[in-house]
């Protein structure tokens, strides 16, 4: 074992220095063998030397000192076992053997393939168009009066603007962190962020009528609120930045925490409202022109008989609850 590798991390980027000629001086001074620009490092900070049967390390800094594997070094040389972590002031490094194994190569997903829906520009274009159509259709369906087509355009354009701004924001973050713009995936993510809530809302309405209950739309609404942003973020981090899934989940949870906190407080409010008294009857009011439903049509008298026994039971429970409260 004649050589060593010094791994340094600066602003998240790792660099490696081969240490071949010993003794090696590490410091901020330009006469050092390995120059480190961190201001907490002394001009002549650390010395590593080769002995016959290994290496020794010596702290030369009287200012911020050096820690070896979290233990402060004295000024006298000390033997060095590999691998080791060193800390020069605030600056972190690792000393490795040249034979140490490196992490396996992360295989880049076949970019621009038909299935990589985030990075394929056709997909991004498709998402953008579908989003625009969905927003326009939503506005068209919800206004039962005749309106100028320019009117719908004026509803769609702000959403498109928001989408572009969002895409630009994501791309800028990429540019800063990964030195790539990655605008296509950013556009896909931004359009999905606007499109999916609309899609889920429609699915929720369809299921509400299908099952004659308000649960599907409620569940879909809440899952969109809580999960959409983190899931898109995780996709973006893993597909575009090749970050491991576990780390991506961590980052996504951390970043979306304020939004999640807001929705949690909102949901708790709604739940406390729901559990309290309301003079409004709460029943499934959904109607669908498709009229696709699981409940069969009954004779009025059969339905009324059924509802009488169902309501007897429900009201009995409500009366019991009320009696417990008073």
């Amino acid at each position, binding site marked *: 074992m004649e050589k060593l590798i010094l791994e340094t991390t600066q602003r998240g980027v790792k660099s490696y220095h081969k240490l071949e000629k010993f003794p090696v001086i590490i410091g901020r001074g330009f006469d050092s063998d390995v120059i480190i620009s961190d201001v907490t490092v002394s001009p002549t900070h650390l010395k590593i030397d080769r002995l016959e049967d290994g290496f020794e390390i010596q702290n030369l800094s009287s200012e911020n000192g050096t820690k070896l594997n979290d233990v402060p070094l004295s000024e006298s040389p000390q033997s060095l076992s590999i691998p080791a972590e060193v800390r020069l002031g605030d600056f972190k490094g690792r000393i490795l053997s040249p034979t140490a194994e490196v992490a396996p190569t992360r295989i880049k997903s076949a970019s621009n393939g038909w299935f990589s829906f985030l990075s394929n520009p056709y997909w991004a274009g498709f998402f953008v168009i579908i989003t625009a159509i969905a927003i326009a259709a939503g506005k*068209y*369906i*919800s206004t*039962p*009066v*005749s309106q100028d087509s320019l009117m719908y355009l004026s509803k769609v354009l702000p959403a498109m603007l928001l989408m572009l701004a969002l895409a630009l924001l994501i791309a800028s973050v990429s540019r800063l962190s990964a030195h790539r713009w990655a605008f296509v995936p950013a556009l896909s993510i931004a359009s999905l962020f606007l499109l999916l809530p609309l899609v889920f809302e429609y699915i929720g309405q369809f299921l509400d009528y299908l099952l*004659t209950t308000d649960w599907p739309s409620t569940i879909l609404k809440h899952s969109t609120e809580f999960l959409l942003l983190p899931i898109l973020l995780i996709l973006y981090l893993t597909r575009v930045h090749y970050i491991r899934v576990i780390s991506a989940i961590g980052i996504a949870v951390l970043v979306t925490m304020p939004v999640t906190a807001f929705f949690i407080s909102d949901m708790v409010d709604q739940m406390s409202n729901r559990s*309290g*008294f*309301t*003079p*409004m*009857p*709460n*029943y*499934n*009011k*959904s*109607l*669908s*022109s*498709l*009229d696709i*439903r699981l*409940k*069969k*049509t*009954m*004779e*009025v*008298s059969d*339905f*009324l008989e*059924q*509802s*009488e026994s*169902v*309501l007897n039971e*429900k*009201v009995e429970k*409500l*009366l019991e*609850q*009320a*009696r417990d*409260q*008073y």
Partner: protein
Amino acid sequence: MIRYILLLVLFSSVTQVAVALTDTSSIYEEVESSVYQIRVINNETGKKVAIGSGFVVQQDNILATNYHVVSEYVNGSDVFKLEYLSTDGETGPLELLDLDVIHDLAVVKSTKPMGKPLEISAVPEKGARLYSLGNPLDLGFSIVTGTNNGIMTQDQDGNILFSGNLNGGMSGGPALDESGKVIGVNVATQGNALGFLVPAKYLSVILDRLADNDFLPVKDRFARISEQLIANSERTIERLSGNDWGTTQIGKFLVPAELDKSMRCWDLSRVPKKDDLFRSFLTQCSNQKNTYLSKNLSLGMINYEYVWMDTEKLIPARFYTRYEKMNSSFIESDVDKSDVTNFACHTGFTKTAGQDFKTTVCRRDYLKYKGLSDMLFSTVLVGHPAEGGVFNLDVTGTNHKAAYGLFKKMVESFQWKN
């Protein structure tokens, strides 16, 4: 102007007026000592929260008044107490014996003799002179002369129409015929010189019931009230069900029109505009009759409404977004959680007049009034891409079974006219 009218009256009926005047003063003298102010007093502050009038009847310690005069006490007997105030300023406690919320009557008992009991008599012929006594606006006792204008029909509310100036505070006072016998109890006023009296026969019913029971107070007032409300609601619904409703057309449906003469129906359709893409019609009917229970609770309302929507220009998805907004029914009332439970609802699909409907029944029960419910029915036409129809029926303060019966009968009389 006023002087002119007064002079006119004096000249045109000199002899009659002279007779009536002696009558009025003699009646006043005769019954003055039997008429009292009834007041509800807050235990803590000792101040009155409601006043009305009352009179001695049947026994010298029994007084009759209106339910609405003592309702504050009935609903909060731990906070309030009942008191009388005589014409000469004497006060004393009263105990509530029995009540009739439907006819707005209450009977109370004093611990000591209160004067000569007034006698009850049948309502005299239409046009007869009546004397109404009471304590208008807390200004002191007075007597008002007026005319009997007859008894209103049952589908109104069976009260005596009295043309005389009844005022607040006279509620619960007696209305006497010319022989000084009680024929009714002052209950309400409307507009100018239009008063209503409860026929005294309903008071006799309570007094007979009390006499059978040694004039002991009713044990559970709320149970008695809910019995009365339920019986009244059942009677009303039975009466409605027996009527010939006639039909009215809304969209492609022939539906029952007014269930009764007391029902008032209004058209509340939006005014169509030239560029409308759909048509929509709304008819609302209400029985306008509530039984007063407390300041924020009146029950016995029957409301129903028909909505029709259709379109030739809207695509189904667009039409249904609008139609779905019409599918929302609720009961307007001031109840809170100390009155009722939340609504429990049941929704399904039913076949009416050969068409499919999405039908919902909701029910909530009163906590104090056992067996009393508010019922809400809603049935909505489905399966027609360009046509929609909604029928909503609300019945408050009812026996739920009776309300089911009414809804069923109404829905089963629907006809589809293509």
